[in-house]
């Protein structure tokens, strides 16, 4: 039974990804490009050298965090679609904290403090959504969406004033000192220790959700909030906690991007992390371990799409196109799975009746 379900999940998801890529490939025909050529360029160039290949995992790192952020509250039947804003808050704190402390404290200590600060900052930014949900019964979907635009405005303001680079030319910070860069795990590539952190976070969230009493309570509230309240679970407190953890996860993406990749804060960078994170979470069916693989796939699309853009005059918007098509087909695959499942049940019933 379980096996049939898992088989359906794998087959329909793979099919969805293939169809999404085929659909985007067909769009290339409009540009007069041969999609088969474009994709073979994509595949060969992604595995062309270690640097490019490792970049897939670099791109996957923040995506794992934002996908976890969505999946975590989703388990409590709450919608946090503000991961983008929580990520920006985390990024601002990471840049400000690192710049402030890098000349005072040793690098490793700055990294730890900055990480903790982004967890708290992103977490509180997220917890606010949970708070107004719990206290005023506000629509968390709406508030989380709006909070992203507020976070963006805060980031732009700080980049124009307090955090602006020494030359005060562009809205970006000075570069971080090399001592507060996240250590690289493979020399000669951009792959940094943040990737390990992201994988650990996925495993940690899985353990938290499925192996601890807190995770059980969160899932119980998601399954049936009324019944959970009856059994003595304080749903309101859980709303805040779930949003704190969710926001903290998205905030850490800001830390790994600023300290691990950019080494500075640039205005409006990574604008689609939040939306892609939601796509990854639904591709993985909300499973934290599945998120690791789904994020790597999206990372590969990003790296491949960028290379396609550089090599053959294909616009980099092909990345969003691929992501969008894959997401739509993944949602369709949910329908197909339910349909398959129902058919199986029906056959079982018919068999039982025939006996």
């Amino acid at each position, binding site marked *: 039974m379980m096996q049939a379900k898992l088989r359906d999940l794998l087959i329909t998801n793979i099919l969805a990804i293939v169809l999404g890529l085929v659909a985007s490939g067909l769009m290339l025909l409009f540009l007069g490009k041969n999609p088969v050529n474009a994709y073979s360029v994509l595949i060969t160039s992604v595995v062309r050298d270690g640097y490019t290949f490792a970049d897939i995992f670099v791109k996957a790192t923040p995506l794992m965090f934002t996908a976890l952020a969505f999946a975590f509250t989703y388990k409590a039947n709450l919608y946090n679609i503000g991961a983008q804003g929580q990520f920006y808050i985390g990024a601002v704190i990471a840049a400000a904290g690192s710049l402030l402390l890098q000349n005072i404290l040793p690098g490793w200590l700055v990294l730890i403090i900055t990480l903790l600060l982004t967890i708290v900052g992103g977490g509180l930014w997220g917890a606010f959504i949970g708070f107004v949900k719990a206290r005023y019964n506000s629509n968390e979907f709406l508030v989380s969406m709006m909070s992203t635009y507020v976070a963006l405005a805060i980031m732009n303001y700080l980049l124009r004033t307090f955090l602006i680079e020494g030359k005060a030319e562009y809205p970006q910070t000075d570069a971080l000192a090399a001592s507060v860069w996240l250590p690289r795990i493979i020399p000669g590539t951009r792959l940094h220790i943040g990737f390990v952190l992201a994988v650990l976070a996925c495993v940690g969230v899985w353990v938290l959700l499925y192996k601890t009493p807190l995770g059980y309570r969160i899932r119980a509230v998601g399954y049936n909030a009324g019944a959970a309240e009856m059994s003595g679970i304080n749903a309101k407190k859980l709303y805040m906690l779930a949003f704190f953890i969710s926001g903290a996860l998205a905030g850490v993406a800001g830390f790994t991007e600023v300290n691990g990749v950019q080494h500075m804060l640039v205005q409006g960078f990574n604008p689609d992390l939040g939306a892609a994170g939601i796509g990854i979470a639904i591709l993985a069916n909300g499973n934290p371990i599945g998120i690791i693989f789904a994020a790597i796939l999206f990372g590969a699309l990003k790296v491949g799409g960028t290379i396609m853009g550089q090599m053959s005059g294909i616009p980099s918007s092909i990345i*969003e196109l691929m992501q969008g098509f894959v997401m739509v087909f993944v949602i369709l695959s949910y329908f197909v799975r339910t349909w398959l499942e129902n058919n199986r049940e029906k056959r079982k019933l018919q068999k039982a009746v025939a006996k």
Partner: protein
Amino acid sequence: MIYLLSATIMMGTPLLFGALAEVIAERTGMMVTAIEGIFLMGAWAGFVGGYLSGSLIVGFLAAMLAGLLVASLYGWICIYLKQHQVVTGVAINLLVVGLCSFLYRVIFGVPITPLTVNPLATIPIPLLSEIPLLGPILFNQNILTYIIYVLAPLSYFMLYKTSIGLTIRSAGENPEAVDVAGINVLRVRFLTVLLAGVMGGVAGAFYSIGFLGMFTTNIIGGRGWIAFAICFLGNWNPKGAVIGTLAFGFAEAIAIYMQSTGNSALFPNELFIALPYIMTIVLTISRKSFSVPAKLGVPYVKEN
């Protein structure tokens, strides 16, 4: 001040198109979370149609068609395939961003200077626009503004005084009853979503060819979500939507005014840009009683 109020009415126009569309659809139980994508597709199609044909009318027709297409994809997945409205909306919005910037490139390549069209002209209404104060504010607007302020009371009348309105409202409150009455619930929902697509397409085109005269992929920048929010804050009622729209239009007019006059010494620009979004959050918190349609966001499954 007159400038600000007149800008309020103008900037409120697309928001009201979107909010009314959302009110009608949500009354049947369908949140149109693809609204941001519908706006963007409308802005894109409006610009492309308007630029290539040289006629803004063609542009707006193209925008309606584009909005309709996005809405039909959304409606098909959410209504007939019964998939999740929030998740589907996010996916479609992302897809539309990709489609718009990709197809813009396909059609126009990489233009050296940004392509522009002449946006909608204002049409002063004879006599009425001569009234001091009120004239320039209310009666010196473009055609869409006049249309939407006729559509707003019409949609109120339609929702509350006609049998179509009753069917629409019942589909969101008690779909079983609608079904028993022999009316196809899914079709009612689908048609309202399509209507929302058409209106949302016009709203999007307002930004590209009604006002700015150009297209960029961040032209909508969350305005679809604001329309979505206005529907909530207006308590799923066209009257509330008008009030909400004026408030948001005012916030946006201030933001544009502040940006055009440069930095104010007291408050940073970004505060004014964020104002509509902050307002949404504050209003969501402060509103106590909402009459949410009972089946909002719940797919309708017929019992066998």
